[in-house]
């Protein structure tokens, strides 16, 4: 079973870190045949959604984004660890369900 992670960015007006680099680091921690990352589309249902906010105001509009198991807002590279842990936990719990 492949986990699909939706990726949502804020508008990036005044970012304090490179959001695409952070995403690359998170992506590289997982086997792409098991965890897939894609830019969110409205009305799609994702297993989990990562929101890459460039600053603490966390203004990304997620009103039309759907997730089965939750959202995680990242506001700095410090969020990489938590994102990876959450995805791993999700991955394990879904395996158990299978």
């Amino acid at each position, binding site marked *: 079973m492949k986990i699909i992670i939706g990726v949502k960015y804020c*508008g*990036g*007006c005044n970012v304090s870190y490179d*959001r695409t680099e952070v995403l690359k680091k998170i992506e590289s921690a997982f086997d792409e045949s098991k965890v897939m990352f894609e830019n969110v589309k409205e009305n799609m249902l994702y297993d989990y959604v990562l929101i890459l906010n460039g600053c603490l105001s966390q*203004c990304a509009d997620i009103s039309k984004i759907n997730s089965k198991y939750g959202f995680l807002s990242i506001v700095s590279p410090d969020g990489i660890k938590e994102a990876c842990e959450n995805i791993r936990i999700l991955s394990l719990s879904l395996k158990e369900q299978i």
Partner: protein
Amino acid sequence: MALMTGEQYLESIRKLNMNIYMFGEKIKNAESSPILRPSLNSVKATYDLAQMPEYEDIMTATGLNGEKINRFTHIHRSQEDLIKKVKMQRLCGKKTGACFQRCVGFDAFNAVYSTTFEIDDKYGTHYHENFRKYMELVQGRDYTVDGAMTDGKGDRSLSPSKQPDPDSYLHVVERRPDGVVVRGAKVHQTGITNSHEVLVMPTCAMKPEDKDYAISFAVPTDSKGITIIVGRQSCDTRKLEGSSIDTGNPKFGGMEALVVFDNVFVPNDRIFLNGETEFATMLVERFSGYHRQSYGGCKVGVGDVLIGAAALAADYNGVPKASHIKDKLIEMVHLNETLYACGIACSAEGSKTKSGNYLIDLMLANVCKQNVTRFPYDIARLAQDIAGGLVVTAPSEKDLKDEKLGAYIEKYFCGAAGVKTEDRIKIMRLIENLTLGTAAVGYLTESLHGAGSPQAQRIMISRQSHMDEKKKLAKAIVDIKD
């Protein structure tokens, strides 16, 4: 096709047959002109960014027909929209380090939208319906529209209809059953060669005798009778020399022009104001208010680039830890963020107009712009202070690349260990470009005079200062009875 890609935008501009002149010659292909191409790239960036997931949240919005549109064609529906506008402008300034030219039309859209509604409300005219249909076209085709307000003005002590030359202000010269014919000119037109359409507005308050001058309309930029004469920018011909380094910003730029309307026909459905002189003031004040807000975004983004360049210059010069350098960089950031704070504040305090769109707080927008007339100059001075004299004395790229001369330049213009001399010169050229080269047109003089010269803001600040209320406050504190 509510959202064009950058390439589709270029293709759409290529299809226009604009009548452009520069250095006494007709420009058949503005895209291939080294002087104009960087300005086209800046507008293209507004299309490219809207396609990128990491920017679409502020670069796009939902249009009048529910479609996803470029925010530069949006009619603001909330304070949040006003805030997102400023954030988008900061982003575009950061990405181009130049004027990206699409704001004037954007501000005109919102000013004309609400003003036409109120004219119709009073006179039973159909300007708002005309304009709404026009906006559906603009949003649906993702047009770039030049907002055209400033006239030549002739003798500034005389009203439009009292000028010795009646064409000093653009005016109606013929009224026909199917439309009007206009003559005159709009000056300082930012981005006109990169625009699909031009949206004309009156430039000042008008009296009943100025009826023919109270005209607002939109036509394609390649309409019969329109002539575009490109304005010069400081150091513009460096772009013709084939050097990337010497231009300072080899990718992006801005452009301005004199736009002559020589008996241009405007069909009825493209007219948004026609003789209702008392509404000229509302249109001018709303447009200039929006545009004064805009500068709290775009100039801040360009300021970010300049601050970054100054910090790099300090690194390359080997003095990043000098306390006075650090303090100057802090001062630059403080000034820049103060402008941003004003842009955000006038947006957050915005209010709904009768038409339903949102207007910025006019007092705070004017305070924003008044600061913009000063702070970029201070930031530019600090950037030059930090960078040093090399900003204005560095040899050319040709000399740098010359086998014999290049060795001298490498030897005597080297900086901190590990820094390439070429990189040091590149940063100096960027600072030169922003503070006294082609980009200084947008970053400095446009900051002073664009969206109205400093005195225009002071008049608006005075009008909205509620001075009597302030006097009452003082009286109440010390028990002065009337």
